[in-house]
């Protein structure tokens, strides 16, 4: 009997033992094979021995500087994907690392979901790990579901795919906006061309222009070679701009010119180059509201918002949660070499009643957790993560069609008007309640740094 070759691991280099254990546990639960190291020297040795698919690297190590270590790794294996972890307040180091070749960065304290998302995204972006767990996670959620809202989405994709029209996808986090973009690409005549995805919200603003349009060697400090940029790399295919509303105004102007002229001019280049690219973009915000606030150019909005597709939240996809969970269960079980008999009636009923605030991504994580933590058999409520089994995120008993999270009362509501501080305080409390008290997650929802919330909480009168 021959054994399949082991997948390349994720190498985690982190000197703080508790964080190393936590990150390793989170990544292992997400289905990754993880090697760990506590020092730079140990990390380099493991790197040479295991040829990892991805390195997650803390920039502060006891024996050497993380940036130096990263440069050594990239010198030895130039294609290595490296994601750096830096402390809050050290963003300049993260920017340095991105300029030196890191693909992404995370800021401590690291949100567990952000870690698995970032690792999954990097691993599913091609290279030695393509088709690994990240890819399976994507396949598992790939438009399974026969609900009416999803049927409408599929019909819209089919009708728009063959045109050149720009597609603007909206929807909550975890609803599958990137899968939708990929489906548009795969059903188009450009399917044999490249599909280049760029997360405008994950790239430092001063790097975004060079990521989209490229740069010439020597055009700025750290530009050690020519880089084509995503727009040129997508020539003949599709460029997917995720979180497009996060794009800074200066770059919005350049994107508009790109859409008008179909030419790109890398930073430092003297003449533009013609490219043939279809644009698909997405946001989890309300783009019209971003226009009203002045955060997004109106002319760019109308140029991009040609064919809107709204990805429905899982709570509005009647019955799809069970279909997706059953499909994912079989897929993940096959990967883990286990055998599951499906979902028990109680679990099916629970899955139908849950509101799934994290949408399909949350559901897939739950199923992955079940597969990893249990040997097999029929999935019962006892096998589910504790908070889910106890009915977390259950639908409200009211007939409200869209049980959106509670918002702070407006100042114009009944009773005495609220002060600005009270509104802020209620918004923080509501976000904390929605995220089980997790300050990093609440901060992300409120679009502030976690330290802001800590500070606001500390400033409250005691008692």
């Amino acid at each position, binding site marked *: 009997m021959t054994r399949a070759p082991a997948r390349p691991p994720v190498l985690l280099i982190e000197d*703080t*033992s*508790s*964080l*190393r*254990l*936590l990150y390793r*546990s*989170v990544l292992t*639960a997400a289905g990754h094979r993880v090697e760990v190291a506590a020092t730079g020297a140990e990390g380099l040795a493991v790197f040479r021995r295991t040829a990892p698919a991805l390195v997650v690297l803390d920039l*502060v190590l006891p024996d050497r500087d993380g940036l130096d270590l990263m440069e050594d790794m990239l010198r030895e294996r130039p294609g290595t994907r490296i994601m750096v972890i830096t*402390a*809050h*307040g050290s963003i300049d180091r993260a920017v340095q690392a991105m300029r030196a070749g890191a693909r992404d960065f995370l800021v*401590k*304290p*690291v949100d*567990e979901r952000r870690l698995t998302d970032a690792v999954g995204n990097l691993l599913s972006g091609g290279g030695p790990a393509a088709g690994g767990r990240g890819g399976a996670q994507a396949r598992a959620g790939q438009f399974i579901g026969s609900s009416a809202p999803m049927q409408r989405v599929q019909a819209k994709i089919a009708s728009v795919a063959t045109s050149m029209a720009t597609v603007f996808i909206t929807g909550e986090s975890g609803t599958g906006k990137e899968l939708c973009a990929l489906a548009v690409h795969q059903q188009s005549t450009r399917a044999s061309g490249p599909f280049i995805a760029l997360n405008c919200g994950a790239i430092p603003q001063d790097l975004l222009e060079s990521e989209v349009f490229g740069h010439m060697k020597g055009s700025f400090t750290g530009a050690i070679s020519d880089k084509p940029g995503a727009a040129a790399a997508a020539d003949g295919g599709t460029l997917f701009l995720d979180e497009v509303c996060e794009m800074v105004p200066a770059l919005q102007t350049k994107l508009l010119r790109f859409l008008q002229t179909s030419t790109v001019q890398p930073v430092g280049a003297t003449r533009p180059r013609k490219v043939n690219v279809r644009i698909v973009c997405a946001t989890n915000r309300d783009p019209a509201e971003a226009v009203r606030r002045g955060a997004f150019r109106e002319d760019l909005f109308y140029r991009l918002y040609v064919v809107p597709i709204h990805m429905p939240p899982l709570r509005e996809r009647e019955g799809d949660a069970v279909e997706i969970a059953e499909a994912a269960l079989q897929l993940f079980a096959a990967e883990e070499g286990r055998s599951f008999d499906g979902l028990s009636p109680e679990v099916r009923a629970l899955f139908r009643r849950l509101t799934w605030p994290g949408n399909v991504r949350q559901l897939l994580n739950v199923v992955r957790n079940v597969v990893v*933590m249990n040997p097999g058999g029929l999935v019962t409520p006892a096998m589910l*993560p*504790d*908070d889910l089994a106890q009915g977390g995120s259950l639908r409200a008993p009211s007939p409200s069609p869209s049980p959106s999270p509670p918002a702070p009362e407006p100042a114009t509501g009944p009773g005495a008007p609220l002060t600005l501080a009270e509104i802020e305080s209620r918004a923080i409390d509501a976000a904390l309640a929605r995220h*089980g*008290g*997790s*300050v*990093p997650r609440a901060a992300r929802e409120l679009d502030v740094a*976690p*330290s802001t919330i*800590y*500070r606001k*909480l*500390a400033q409250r009168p005691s008692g």
Partner: protein
Amino acid sequence: MIPAGFDRLRAVLGGQWPDFLACLRADLAAQQGVLAQPGAAAEDLRRAAHVLKALAGTVEHAALAAAAQRLHAAAARPGGDLAAAAAETGLALRDLVGHLDRIARGPA
């Protein structure tokens, strides 16, 4: 009050929760050692603050996160009141360590 992040971390870590607590206790003890050194160098305190910020943020211990942030700032600024910031951080750290020790001892 038990740090807000403990429930979340226990759910995430499952069977590795006790190992995590042991590692966390050791990481915190190491930083306590740095803070307790009379006349500790600013660079050592800055590094300790760096570690403590990450740990406090992870377990969501607001007081330690805020104190470590102030220590980090004081260590990075010439003339910053390092001794006061280190003392404040030491107090918040002792609170977190106390929680860990109570968990380790189990219910009374």
